[in-house]
Every structure is written in C-alpha cells, then in structure tokens.
C-alpha cells in the first residue's frame, strides 16, 4: 500500500484550508501559495502516472479496512491519466486566474483548490457512494466559482445549474440506494462481482438503478436532453473557471467509462452492456445539437461552450460502441479536447478584454491590441477543435473513425462526425474572420494590455495540442493500454484480494 495515492487529495485540501484562513493576507502571497499547491498536485499526479503505467492496480484502504468493507482509493491507468489531465489544466487556469481574475473574492483560490480536490477524489475513488460525495464536493465548489466575479448575468444560469445538479444528486442517491438494496455493497469491485449474480425480480431493480445512474452521469456530461444548462452557464462564467469546467463534463464521461465496462461489461450476464444502445444515438444527436449551437452562437464564449457539447458527443459515441479501439481513441481525444476547449475559453476572454464594448461578440469592431498573438492562438485552438490536421484534434477524430467496425454504426458515426467537423470549421472560420479580420475604422479604449501571466498561461495551454502531436505515439500507447485494462475487469476485481497492512502489535488483535 503506497501513501502516494492520497497525495492528490490531501495537497489541495490542505492548500485550500490554508487559503480559507488567509483571506486577508496580501494577494501576492495568496497567489504564490495557491500556485505552489497546484504545482505540488501536478507533481503528485505525475508520480501516480508513473506508478500506474506498469499496468497494476494500487489501492489505498482508509483505516486499513480490507475491501469491500471500507472505502478504498484505487489507482489504475485511467485514474492516473485523468489526474494528470486535471492537474495540468488546473495549473494553467490557476496561473491565468492569478493575472487578475482572482480579485474581488477573497475565497477564489480556496474554492479553486477544493474544486480540484473534488475532481481528484472522483477520479481515485473505488466506492460508488464516495463517488457521490466527490461529485458533491466538486459541485459545491463549482457553484461558488460559477458565481465568482459577480454580475447579475451570472445569477440566473447559476440558479439553473445548482437546481439541476441538486436534482441530479437526488437521482444519484436513489440509484445508489436501488443498487445497494439488491447487492448489499457499494464497493465498485465488489459490485462487479455481485451484479452478474443478480437474478429474478432483483434484476429489474439493478437495471433501473443502472439506467438512472446513466441519467445522472449524462446530466454531468451534458448529453442531449440534459445539456441546455451548459452553454449559458459556461459562457457567462469567468474565463479560468469556464476553462476548468471543461473538465467537469469529462467527469461524467469518466464515471461512465469507469462504471459501465466494470459493472455492466461483457461478463455481466443479462445486464451486459446496459444502456449502451441508448447512449450511441444520444451521443450522435448531442454532437449534431452542439454543431447547430456552434453555428448559431453570437459570441466566442458561447461558441466554445457549444464546442464542449460537440466534444461530449464525439467522445461518447465510440465509448457506447464499447470496443477496445474505440475506448482508446475516445481517451486520446478526451485529453486533446479538454485542453483545447479550455484554451479557447481563455483566448475568448483575452479577446473580450481587448475589444471594449464589443467584448467577445461575433461582430466587427475596431482593430484590437495584440491582434496577431490572439488570432494565432485562436487559429491553433480552432484547428485543434475542428479536427484539422496537423493538430491533435485531427488524430483523435481519426482514431475514433478508425475504431468502428464496418456496418450501420460506422455509416452513422462517420457521417455525423465528418459533417459535424466541417460545420464546426465553418462556425470557427466565420467567428475568426469577423472578430480578427473585419475591422472597422476607429479606435478602442482598451482597458489595459495583457499581463505576462495571462498571455503565457493561455499560450502554453493552447500549444499543449502540439505537444500531444509530438508525443502521439506514447500517448496513444498509454490510452490503448488503459482501454485494455478497462475492458478486462478481472484486474479491478482482484483488488478485493489485495493484502492490507496487518498491525504488527498482536495486542491490538486481542481486543476482540
């Protein structure tokens, strides 16, 4: 049992608590400490990635309770990948935020760190109820972050977001209760053992529970009938928060990828592949809806918010088909799209800051300051998001297209993804040419030039897509190994037999 597993949770927790008590300290001190915390978290995530890349499962049993009796943290390739993805994103968003977006609210850094902690718990936990708690932790931090910066425009989308997520939490509890009432366990590995053994009337209870769970994760991931809250809320959040929220929908996708192949996978008897036949058409409709939204967007942030929904659809379609190649491709695309969308949110905010009253609306305005820098960043982001070569979005989509077997599904997936990509490209070219090229006479009273922290963090986050291209070989090897590990759930089930540390002092044992 290695204690590194708890580090990505403890580091932001302690850093966040420190920030709570430092609300009145000088802002430079708070920023330094907060960014140091995020850097430490990134280091711990990378250590866990190196640990996990040998393909074995590592568990951390709280209180040394042998699973399934206690709560366990489980580290595997998927968890490590998500941790690094989040930590990198969190670091750059945090640096961006320290360029001025964190002013006006003393608890911004605390909320930001608690949000990261909630995300990390969700990725590491091996217990269904603990996953619920993790969702609540990250949600309550996100409610605060969404409101950050004030402004009356954020109240109404925030209210919708909170109410919807509370309903989602209630559904989550109901489905957890249904599954628990039949199986008598909430440990994911134990559930993977118990669910195939369920029979008779209980089968329908577990089925209902599993489908409701899919609804909850669908709400988090913003699948079509449950996605209308997202564009308004994301488009009105402040940029570093919106960029961090790019990973929030991926939490829903992570939960689907974690739970469904494990508990309702090939070996689950009558419950095998539960819900996946629903997920595939919904994913394609979500993609189409996202494209329509992107075409109709009237400002850059809304355009990027719809891009979030497009990427959700693109990711879920191969996941629903359930092949190893599809899962691997989806994970590759997930890394690429999360960073790209986040970078586009940051670029949109920078553009908005330079254009005075026009802000990020897709309208003509006088020439802005830093036009070359911002337009190049937007170009890179748009090319990566639309999936044009040579950037990582192209490779992600290519892998997804290659992963389907010939048949009806292939026709649908190829058609929707390719037409969708083309229309997305049109949406981006329209937005980019109006915002950056078509200038009218006059000059803008720009508030102030960009500072280094803002421009460097946005620049690096945007260029991460190139890094993925350079490292495409290792990254796709890793995602393929991850997909194989997910597909074969025996490894995960074996954590039940994992030896837990036995106290050396025999006296403790004699109390019984």
């Amino acid at each position, binding site marked *: 049992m290695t204690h590194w597993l708890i580090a990505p949770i403890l580091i932001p927790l302690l850093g966040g608590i420190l920030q709570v008590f430092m609300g009145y300290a000088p802002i430079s001190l708070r920023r330094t400490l907060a960014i140091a915390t995020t850097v430490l978290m990134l280091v711990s995530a990378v250590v866990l990635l190196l640990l996990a890349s040998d393909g074995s499962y590592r568990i951390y049993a709280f209180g040394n309770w042998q699973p399934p009796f206690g709560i366990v943290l489980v580290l595997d390739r998927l968890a490590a990948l998500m941790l690094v993805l989040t930590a990198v994103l969190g670091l750059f968003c945090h640096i961006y935020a320290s360029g001025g977006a964190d002013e006006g609210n003393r608890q911004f850094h605390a909320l930001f760190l608690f949000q990261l902690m909630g995300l990390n718990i969700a990725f590491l936990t091996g217990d269904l109820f603990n996953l619920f708690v993790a969702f609540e932790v990250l949600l309550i931090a996100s409610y605060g972050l969404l409101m950050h910066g004030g402004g009356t425009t954020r109240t109404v989308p925030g209210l919708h977001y909170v109410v919807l997520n509370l309903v989602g939490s209630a559904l989550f509890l109901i489905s957890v209760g*249904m599954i628990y009432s039949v199986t008598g366990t909430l440990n994911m590995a134990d559930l993977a053992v118990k669910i195939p053994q369920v029979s008779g009337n209980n089968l329908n209870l577990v089925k209902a529970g599993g489908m409701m769970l899919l609804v909850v994760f669908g709400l988090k991931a913003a699948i079509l009938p449950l996605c209308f809250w997202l564009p308004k809320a994301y488009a009105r959040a402040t940029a570093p928060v919106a960029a961090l929220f790019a990973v929030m929908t991926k939490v829903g996708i992570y939960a689907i990828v974690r739970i469904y192949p494990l508990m309702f996978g090939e070996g689950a008897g009558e419950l095998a592949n539960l819900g996946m036949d629903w997920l595939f058409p919904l994913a394609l409709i979500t993609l189409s809806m996202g494209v329509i939204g992107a075409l109709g967007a009237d400002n850059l942030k809304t355009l990027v918010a719809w891009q979030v929904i497009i990427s959700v659809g693109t990711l879920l379609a191969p996941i629903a088909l359930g092949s190893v190649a599809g899962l691997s491709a989806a994970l590759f695309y997930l890394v690429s799209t999360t960073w790209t969308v986040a970078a586009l949110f940051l670029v949109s905010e920078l553009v908005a800051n330079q254009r005075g009253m026009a802000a990020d609306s897709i*309208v003509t305005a006088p020439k802005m300051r830093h036009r070359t820098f911002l337009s190049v960043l937007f170009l890179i982001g748009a090319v990566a998001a639309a999936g044009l070569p040579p950037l990582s979005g192209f490779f992600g989509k290519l892998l997804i297209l290659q992963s389907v077997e010939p048949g009806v599904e292939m026709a649908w997936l190829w058609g929707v993804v390719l037409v969708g990509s083309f229309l997305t490209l049109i949406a981006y070219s329209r937005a980019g040419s109006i915002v950056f090229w078509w200038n009218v006479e006059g000059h803008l009273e720009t508030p102030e030039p960009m500072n280094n922290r803002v421009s460097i963090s946005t620049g690096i986050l945007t260029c991460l897509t190139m890094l993925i291209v350079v490292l495409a070989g290792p990254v796709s090897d890793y995602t393929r190994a991850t997909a194989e590990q997910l597909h074969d759930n025996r490894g995960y089930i074996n954590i039940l037999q994992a030896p837990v540390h036995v106290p050396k002092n025999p006296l403790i044992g004699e109390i019984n």
Partner: protein
Amino acid sequence: MELLFALVIGTLTASGVYLLLRARTFPVIMGLTLLSYGVNLFLFATGRLATGQQPVIGTAASYSDPLPQALVLTAIVIGFAMTAFLVVLSLRNLADNENDHVDGQRNNTPPSNQDQEVTSK
C-alpha cells in the same frame, strides 16, 4: 409498515417533483427539500425495514444493516448545505432581478442590443 413507508416516500417525492416544476424560486427550494426527504427515507429503507434490531454484529441473533444509516447521515449533511446555498442564491436572484422567477424575467435585456450599438459606431 412497508405500505405506509412506501406511500410516505411516494407522496414526498411526488410533491417534491411537482413543486420543483414551479416557476418561482421559493416553491422550487421547497420541492428540492421534500425531494431530499423522500430520497433520504428511501436510502434508509434500502437496508430493509425492521424494528427493535441492533446495528452491532454479535449482540443479537439478527442485526439491522448499519450502512444505510451512515449513507443517510452523509446525504442529510450534504443536502442541508446545498439547500442553505440555494436559499442564499435565490435571495441574490431576487435582489438582482427584483423578481423571484426562476428565469429572472425582468431586466432580461438580450445582449444583442449592446452589440448593435457597437457595430453602428
């Protein structure tokens, strides 16, 4: 007892969902509260209904499942915090929009008006 319990949960959930679909924030909050009561009772029942049993193994022939109680406790704490936050948020909504409609109807000028002013300059 099972019938009574099921009816109570059903009534709470149904009224909760009904109130949740109202257009004002106050009924919505009440609805969420009722819904969370219903959910908590439901979670409580997942350990099977029994009276007079002890939650400790070894002290009696049969024992009641202690886990749902822990789950309910966690759910209550989280639900309480969330409701408190929601009350504050809806008060903020009331203050910002001078209206407690969930869509904040008044002062809801579309942003496109501003854009047109910019383009016409």
